[in-house]
């Protein structure tokens, strides 16, 4: 149980390849932090620097109130769950879990107590005598977690722990990690490339790309107010639609966005933010999430027209891939229940359709800097 402070952390390989640039983050005690980003974004490298498995090229790393830059991993009081579990194949599950405790010269009774307790929590008591190769993927995952929790570490690191599991098991384990976290209240740092895991698990999410932090915030913050195009596109599934639009500054500090013959007046909050930044009329990228679109079947004026290319039936909702007049492709996510039988039957390849979206949920980005205009 400890807070962490990463100040100007940097990782440089072979003198010129920079994996992590100037990473600054304060992690509160007992916080669950998720590092998320595409592969090669530096999230695992950062985690491994925290663990002490990689040298820190620059900056200071503090755990609790101790600078640990030059401290060996074994002395950092951390535990880690690896992507491939890294269970010791030659010893039993029991000994796997007891390994770290025995190294700390704990008495047999204490080792026994802790291992049994952890096994109990994870429901793996009956597998204690087995060797790791005789376990299924999910069980191995539990052992790996068990090996970490017997330690009662200050910080709990997890490096893509669920990525080797199949989809169903992954959902189940995700829920279990949430429960586990309730039971062993400590600081978690969790690395994943999966935004769903990030959103569901994290107290705060750190979104990374190419070694840079893109945004840090609660799941809600990063979802509702993405700082740039990358974050907007990365969080949420299917991905946010990006449309070319024109921002028009009108009299009285009002703004509106114009696209495909549609003029969308922006609400006061957005106008105020834009006015505060003194944004003039310019080209913008307008972001709209698929789930915020609505199909329109009557002939009202304020709609965008497109041609249906793909209709994916997902059960409770439809994912419609629509090409606009200029070839831009957008995805609409329409709840099945909102449509009548006849309306659904009409959604075939090549059919024309119209859609709209509420002005409130639009996002505005500068096309050049790719930054959000609303910060």
């Amino acid at each position, binding site marked *: 149980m400890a807070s962490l402070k990463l100040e100007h952390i940097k990782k440089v390989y072979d003198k010129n390849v920079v994996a992590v640039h100037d990473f600054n983050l304060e992690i509160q005690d007992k916080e669950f932090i998720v590092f998320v980003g595409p592969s090669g974004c530096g999230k695992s490298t950062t985690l491994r620097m925290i663990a002490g*498995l990689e040298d820190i090229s620059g900056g200071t790393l503090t755990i609790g109130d101790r600078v640990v830059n030059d401290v060996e991993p074994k002395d950092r009081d951390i535990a880690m769950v690896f992507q491939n579990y890294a269970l*010791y194949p030659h010893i039993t599950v029991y000994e796997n879990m007891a*390994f770290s405790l025995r190294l700390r010269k704990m*008495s047999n009774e204490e080792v026994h107590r802790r291992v049994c307790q952890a096994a109990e929590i994870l429901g793996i*008591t009956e597998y*204690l005598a087995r060797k790791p190769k005789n376990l299924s993927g999910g069980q191995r995952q539990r052992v790996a977690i068990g090996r970490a929790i017997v330690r009662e570490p200050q910080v709990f690191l997890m490096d893509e722990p669920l990525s080797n599991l199949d989809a169903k098991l992954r959902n189940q384990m995700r829920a279990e990690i949430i429960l586990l976290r309730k039971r062993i209240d400590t600081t978690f740092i969790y690395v994943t490339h999966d935004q769903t895991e990030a959103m569901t698990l994290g107290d705060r999410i750190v979104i990374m790309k190419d070694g840079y932090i893109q945004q840090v915030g609660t799941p809600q913050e990063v979802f509702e107010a993405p700082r740039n195009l990358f974050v907007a596109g990365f969080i949420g599934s299917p991905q946010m639609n990006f449309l070319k639009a024109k921002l028009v500054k009108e009299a009285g500090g009002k703004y509106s966005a114009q696209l495909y013959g549609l003029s969308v007046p922006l609400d006061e909050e957005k106008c105020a933010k834009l006015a505060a930044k003194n944004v003039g009329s310019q080209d913008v990228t307008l972001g709209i999430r698929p789930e915020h679109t609505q199909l329109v079947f009557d002939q009202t004026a304020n709609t965008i027209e497109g041609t249906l290319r793909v209709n994916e039936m997902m059960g409770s909702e439809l994912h419609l891939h629509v090409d606009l007049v200029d070839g831009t492709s957008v995805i609409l996510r329409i709840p099945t229940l909102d449509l009548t039988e006849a309306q659904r039957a009409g959604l075939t390849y090549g059919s024309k359709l119209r859609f709209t979206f509420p002005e409130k949920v639009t996002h505005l980005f500068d096309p050049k800097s790719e930054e959000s205009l609303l910060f």
Partner: protein
Amino acid sequence: MTNNANVAAGQQKLRSKKGHERRINGTIYTVLVVMSIVWLVPFVFLVLQSFRSYKLEKGGMVDYLLPKHFSLDNYAFLFEGSNFFSWLGKALIVGLIVAAVSAVLIHACGKLLDKGEESRGRRIALIGGSLLVGFVALTALTAAMQGFVLAGSWVKVLLSLLLFVLAGWIMARVYLKQDSKLLRSIPGYVVEDRHEGLKKFVAMLAEFLVLGIIVQFILAPMTMSQYVRWYINTLTIALFTAVLQTAIVLSVSYALSRLRFKGRKLIMNAVLVLGLFPGFLTMITLYFLLKQLGLTQAGAVPGLILIYCASSGMGYYISKGFFDTIPKSLDESARIDGATRFQVFLKIIMPLAKPIVIYTILMAFMAPWGDYVFASYVAFGHQNGYNVAVGLYNWVNTNDFQNYFTRFCAGGVLVAVPITALFLALQKYYVEGVTGGAVKG
């Protein structure tokens, strides 16, 4: 009609295919049988000739294969003047007694420990005490049996004491760990089944047997014939080389495979370049260096051990290749779990590297049996320092070769049989090593 014809044609095709297959297999079997004969014939001849008496049927090269009288003369000659068999008999008895008493002692220790509370001091006291008592009793026993008085040979006593305590301590720990009550109380923690337990017990007995023989060897050496001496020289060299060389090779390959440090690439490249120099180039220098250390001629045995082991670090290639295949995350995980790199080496990597450890030991053990060049150069005419290869080579390549040929055969058989048996028993590991090494390149 057409249907039937089709079926018939199909059947015929199938039949012809089967016939074809059979012909191929027949050819293969023929080739394999011929090869097997070619491969085995020299060894059969070797064994047959070893039974041709050097006294009754003179001559090295004769124009017949089956000896006219089967005799053990050649073998008898090898052991002439040695009390090897009576010594071995006594040694076995001593070894058995050592094994039995030690087993009982250790078992008793385990039982005692299980009764009391687990504590380090108690454990050490019990095991140490019983080992000490056991040792004194056994030494007295050995001495009595040999009519050998201990006085005047304190070094030997200390040496065997050390050996005994060391091995005993290691085995006691192993044994206690498996039999501890504490472990058994864990739900689902199955103590090995009866078969497994028996195997462990037998292995332990065997180890103590060997230990007993070594104690006997130190306390009451046998008188040796020339051949027995060469044989024991070679065995000594092989055993020490196996242990030391394995330790060195594994250390180097672990360091080069798992640790990252400045100069790692440099070392690997240097070894590559050094390996291109022919080995015998340096022979005179090595001889001179050994001579300075007093390790030639009479000291040939330790000298050869030194030579075999000193540069063995350069043969790290195959085992490094094996280490490279062990996932790195195991090391990392262990280090986070609190292990130092030394502990990672000892507790994680070594157990996982068992095949390659056995391969390395096997290779290191086998090589000294065949080495003629260095062995003859280092021993340099000093017969007591020969190994079997040098001794037997001199038998057939001297002027008296006609007379000694059959004795060479007998000596060769006695070398070949145990080595071959060992090799065949551990063949699996050998195959793993060479294929791994070849594929890795």
